[in-house]
């Protein structure tokens, strides 16, 4: 039999392999994305690819400008945050400071369950319930538009924002609160002037990760955003975010064609945006840790 030293080594190396496998997968994804998508940047020119608006990938001559799609993704994500941030942060404050503990243990897991609902169900809800209502409310020709997508993505980003903001607020040391109250601050003053500023970078992390969720969401926007490659100048008009474009067109784009490469090109842009989000979220997180550890 193996002696304990060899056994130890085998176990150690096996664990090492598993530990690094995620990094391996990530590296694999990056290699594939750039391998398949980068040629289009050379063919079209990266500036023309990102900042012109005619997306006509199957025509002759073809148009590979993703500006409208990129703008749609950004506008819809910002709109989603306009809905999700006030609701999310207010819920987080309420749950962490006002709600009695025994209810908190019910409410928080319930909100987190929202994150587990499959996105196609959000899509169905948006398509069949919300969009007719929006259509009626504004007297529009169709309820499948940017606003409906914003609301749905806002709801989908809520659990991330609530849960992480609540963690951040709860992580503010009790001594901060006690000090503020001892100095004669009211509960509101304590919350607004002491707790929230301390938790702010943690809340920023929550918001950025919520944005990452919103910009990467595919099924819901494919179903509710309408799918018109218009510039999103009016949120009551249909739009077509980048993710929806990839999902709708990849199935029938001939492998290796310009269209195929352009879809991978969109994926590269999307990947870089979410990467930037994650870097910022991580930076804010580091700041927050320093703050609450009292440095």
């Amino acid at each position, binding site marked *: 039999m193996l002696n304990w030293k060899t056994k130890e080594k085998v176990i150690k190396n096996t664990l090492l392999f598993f530990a690094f496998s995620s990094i391996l997968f990530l590296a694999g994804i990056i290699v594939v994305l750039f391998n398949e998508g980068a040629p289009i940047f050379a063919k079209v020119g990266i500036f023309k690819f990102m900042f012109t608006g005619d997306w006509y990938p199957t*025509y002759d001559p073809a148009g590979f400008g993703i500006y409208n799609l990129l703008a749609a993704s950004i506008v819809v994500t910002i709109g989603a945050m306009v809905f999700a941030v006030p609701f999310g942060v207010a819920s987080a404050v309420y749950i962490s400071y006002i709600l009695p503990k025994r209810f908190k243990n019910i409410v928080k897991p319930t909100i987190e369950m929202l994150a587990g609902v499959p996105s196609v169900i959000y899509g169905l809800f948006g398509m069949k319930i919300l969009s007719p209502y929006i259509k009626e409310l504004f007297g529009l020709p169709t309820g499948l538009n940017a606003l409906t997508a914003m609301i749905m993505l806002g709801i989908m980003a809520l659990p991330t924002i609530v849960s992480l903001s609540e963690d951040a607020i709860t992580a503010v040391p009790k001594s901060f609160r006690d000090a503020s109250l001892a100095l004669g601050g009211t509960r509101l003053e304590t919350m607004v002037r002491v707790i929230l500023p301390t938790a702010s970078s943690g809340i920023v992390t929550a918001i950025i990760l919520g944005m990452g969720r919103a910009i990467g969401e595919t099924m819901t926007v494919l179903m509710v955003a309408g799918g018109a490659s218009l510039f999103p100048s009016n949120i009551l008009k249909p739009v077509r975010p980048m993710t929806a474009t990839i999902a709708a067109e990849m199935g029938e784009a001939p492998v290796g064609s310009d269209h195929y490469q352009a879809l991978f090109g969109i994926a590269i842009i999307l990947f870089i945006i979410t990467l930037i989000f994650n870097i910022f979220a991580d930076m804010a997180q580091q700041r927050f840790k320093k703050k609450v550890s009292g440095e």
Partner: protein
Amino acid sequence: MSKINSFAVVMALLLVAVMSLGVMAEDSLVIQGSSTVLPIAQKAAEVYMEKNPGVNISVRGGGSGNGIAALIDGAVDIADSSRFIKEKEVNAAVKNGIFPVPHRIAMDGIAVVINPANSVEELSLEDLKNIYTGKVTNWKEFGGKDMEIVVVSRDSSSGTFEVFNDIALGGERLFQGALLQASNGAVAGVVADTEGAIGYVGLGYLSESLKAVKVNGVAPSNATVASGEFPIARPLFMFTDGWPEGLTAKFINFVLSKDGQKLVKDQGFVPLY
């Protein structure tokens, strides 16, 4: 007990695999081409192989152009195509000693649909072009209500879009405000839910919740598509090298047989008879 069982299962599977390997590759056929024809070729191949064990048919997509190019290179036995062969391709084939023969296997028709609440009954190809390029944006131009037209289209990489774009738009660029949907079902859903919508779907997707308009005065049906009266239609082809013989001939005959044409219909296309 369970160990013995699973061992027996594995052995049995191995045995079957080895046996089928022996039978396989006796008689094989390679088909490549149009993604529109793919579901027909795929289904026909499955059924044919089920009926004739020992025959191996491999079917690939990749587009009409790729299929015909493969036929010219002698790499495939049958090329699926949603269009007729181009003169350039015929010349290239003859130079290689290949003589492409077209076999019309089905018709592909596309119905233009609107919401049942819309009173418009008929549109011309010219009207469709004006709607889909964004030149006309209100139903009152066509005798309907004063209501904005919600243009619904398939995403531009689909075969359905390709036909519609060729025939109705004459290759002109689609209006960017069109709602692009990823499937026939999604188009049908949006049109059924939206009063001002217009869309187009394969004939198989027509239902009570959609109203098919007459195009150039002809209502879409299997009969009008098969006869060529309905304007938004095209034949689908399988090309072979020379007049088919052997397995190739048997397979083409199967596709053209009553059973084969039933498969064509099941896949949402229009049978020849």
